[in-house]
């Protein structure tokens, strides 16, 4: 009889930090202790707290162990599983303080600040079930929504339910999902398609990967429901080849669903047929754009097509097609099961439900969080994310990756939903949330994203291909101190031109990082242009390193480590010091910062 479950995270983050070796160690140690029949090992998807991986959770108490190493496994087995003593040293800090006394051993993940404020709908099964076991998904009410849709609802009722729920596209655009389905449903054709966009290309976003890795069946179920609603019998999941674990688990899940008859002919004896195939993307950012994605599935070079005709009329292989993002699909079965009203009760007036954010950058808890729409940025960063490390000040958060903008510290109490973000010139995007502290240069950030879009522009239309390149060059000019005030106006003008004239979403949103930083941090641009200074101390060409002669103790570490021998001894000996101080020859200095990193004792070197 199984009395305890040990959940080991098998997401990409934890796998790369060694969770496979931990699983093996558990198998060995449990056998040694004779507990193999009493303890069940479960490999799950992402728990969300990736910064603390590899993560192991022991149920029924829910003890949350973080940063577990294979050599720790022996202790967990012998102490915890055999004797019932929690291995305190491995328990995540925040969970060790008992808050409620009645339950002994309060070390559960659910009591941490990271999880308390979250509300998991799309990620509900991630980190809870074994993604490679269809029975566990079914135990969590899996495929019940498909059963309900096929046996109790008409396609029109399914669409109406999704419409009423207020679900909007989670890939970034925020187009109402039910409306998208209803535009496709009436179109007559011999074949229609459902496409799932899992080409997660935004740097810093990884929620789609986590859903596919942790709960692949929820995507299969939702796509079948969508197929029923619009009259499609065939679906494609377009997923990046860079997500090998996600691809493998999804394929396994598809096979299991076929075996159970949940994909294939005459599902639930309703006369409805549906099947799925995976298509691998080669990692081009533009293939996340729906028309380019479909062109790529057809076997052609991924380039966008002009709209109209819209995919709902003439999409994949020229047939009516609905394309939704992974996270959008992850909500569908829950909506069918619990009703539109349940979903609409979460969130804000025009943005219903929850949103998953991938927290990254200068934040304590890097990972995945799911919160109701309308949660403020402050709650996400400080209450859930644990704040900024090293006592630094919050400066801005970048949302929506290279297509989005930034939210400055002054707007930290903005309630995050589609419309509020659009109103401040930002974009929800896919939910990447990169936190920046005072050491981040906003001009440099804009340049970083522009470099990305220059690389990823498919080259089909001129405004995007040439325009983004020119934008990048202007930013380069500014960060190297050669910019003029006229350049700032030209920069802005070109941004609007590219936005208005590009063929697809990639070009239309590419200038957003520049426009947003110009709007909120214009003084930083001006400092680069007028004062030839980078206030955050990032842009190398505007920095000067210098040694405070009176602080220098003459140890010579800086001179010894300088790669270009730009530092030499002077004859000056400061009061109270025994050795002569050093100085930097600015004409030789390459501003690598090695001297400053080595001057940890006297802290005599500064950059300006």
């Amino acid at each position, binding site marked *: 009889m199984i009395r305890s479950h040990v959940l080991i995270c098998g997401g990409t983050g934890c796998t790369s930090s060694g969770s496979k070796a931990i699983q093996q160690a558990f198998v060995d140690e449990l056998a040694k202790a004779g507990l193999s029949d009493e303890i069940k090992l479960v490999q799950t998807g992402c728990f969300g707290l990736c910064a603390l991986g590899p993560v192991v959770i022991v149920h029924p108490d829910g003890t949350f162990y973080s940063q577990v190493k294979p050599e720790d496994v022996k202790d967990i087995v012998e102490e915890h599983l055999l*004797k019932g003593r929690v291995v305190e040293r491995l328990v995540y800090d925040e969970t060790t303080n008992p808050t409620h006394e009645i339950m002994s051993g309060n070390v559960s993940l659910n009591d941490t600040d990271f999880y308390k404020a979250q509300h998991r709908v799309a990620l509900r099964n991630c980190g809870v079930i074994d993604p490679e076991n269809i029975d566990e998904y079914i135990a969590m009410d899996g495929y019940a929504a498909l059963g309900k849709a096929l046996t109790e609802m008409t396609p029109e009722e399914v669409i109406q339910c999704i419409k009423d729920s207020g679900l909007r596209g989670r890939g970034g655009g925020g187009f109402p999902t039910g409306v998208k389905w209803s535009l496709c449903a009436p179109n007559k054709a011999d074949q229609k398609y459902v496409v799932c966009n899992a080409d997660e290309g935004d740097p810093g976003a990884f929620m789609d990967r986590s859903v596919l890795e942790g709960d692949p069946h929820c995507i299969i179920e939702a796509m079948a429901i969508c197929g029923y609603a619009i009259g499609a019998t065939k679906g494609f999941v377009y997923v990046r080849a860079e997500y090998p674990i996600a691809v493998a688990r999804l394929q396994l899940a598809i096979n299991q669903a076929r075996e159970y008859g949940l994909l294939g002919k005459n599902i639930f004896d309703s006369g409805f047929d549906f099947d799925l195939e995976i298509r691998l993307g080669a990692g081009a950012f533009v293939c996340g754009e729906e028309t380019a994605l479909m062109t790529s599935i057809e076997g052609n070079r991924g380039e966008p097509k002009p709209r109209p005709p819209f995919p709902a009329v003439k999409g994949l292989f020229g047939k009516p097609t609905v394309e939704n993002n992974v996270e959008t699909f992850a909500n569908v079965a829950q909506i069918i099961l619990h009703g539109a009203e349940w979903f609409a009760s979460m969130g804000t007036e025009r943005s219903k439900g929850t949103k998953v954010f991938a927290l990254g950058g200068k934040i304590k808890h890097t990972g995945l969080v799911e919160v109701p729409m309308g949660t403020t940025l402050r709650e996400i960063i400080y209450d859930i994310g644990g704040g900024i490390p090293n006592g630094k000040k919050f400066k801005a958060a970048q949302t929506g990756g290279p297509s989005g903008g930034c939210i400055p510290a002054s707007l930290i109490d903005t309630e995050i939903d589609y419309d509020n973000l659009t109103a401040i010139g930002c974009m929800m995007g896919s939910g990447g949330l990169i936190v920046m502290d005072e050491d981040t240069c906003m001009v440099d950030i804009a340049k970083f994203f522009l470099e990305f879009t220059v690389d990823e522009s498919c080259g089909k239309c001129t405004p995007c291909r040439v325009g983004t390149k020119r934008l990048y060059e202007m930013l380069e000019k500014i960060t190297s101190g050669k910019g003029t005030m006229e350049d700032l106006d030209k920069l802005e003008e070109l941004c609007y031109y590219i936005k208005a004239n590009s063929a697809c979403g990639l070009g239309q949103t590419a200038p957003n990082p520049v426009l947003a930083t110009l709007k909120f941090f214009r003084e930083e641009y001006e400092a680069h242009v007028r004062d030839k200074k980078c206030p955050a101390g990032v842009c190398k060409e505007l920095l000067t390193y210098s040694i405070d002669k009176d602080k220098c103790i003459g140890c010579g570490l800086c001179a010894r480590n300088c790669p270009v021998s730009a530092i030499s001894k002077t004859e000056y000996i400061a009061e109270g010091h025994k050795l002569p101080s050093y100085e930097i020859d600015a004409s030789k200095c390459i501003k690598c910062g090695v001297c400053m990193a080595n001057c940890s004792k006297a802290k005599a070197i500064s950059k300006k």
Partner: protein
Amino acid sequence: MKSLAELQAIREKMRDKVVLREDSGEIRVVVGMATCGIAAGARPVLNTFVEEVNSHGLNNKVTVSQTGCIGICQFEPVVEVYEAGKEKVTYVRMTPEKAKEVVEKHLKSGKIIAEYTITNDRLIGG
């Protein structure tokens, strides 16, 4: 699979196996499993609780868990029953047979078996 009934059957069958991972138990049974407890025979007691709770279909309501030494080693195996809003009940000198009875009477029907509790033990109580 051709019917909702079959899906339902799989769900029922699997439900018991994953319910362990949900924080749903209204009642929490904690078995002392330190060296003293194990030496006194806590392992069969723990396993009996797990089996009996399952066979009585109480696994939605009852969580069986283990803990370390609570300091009354002479009374081991010790089993404590926590229930929200009620006083903790401590059973001492447990055996698999007593465990079966506790599941039957206390966990299922809410009747505390006073003679097995610590307050009734001849060394301390009444």
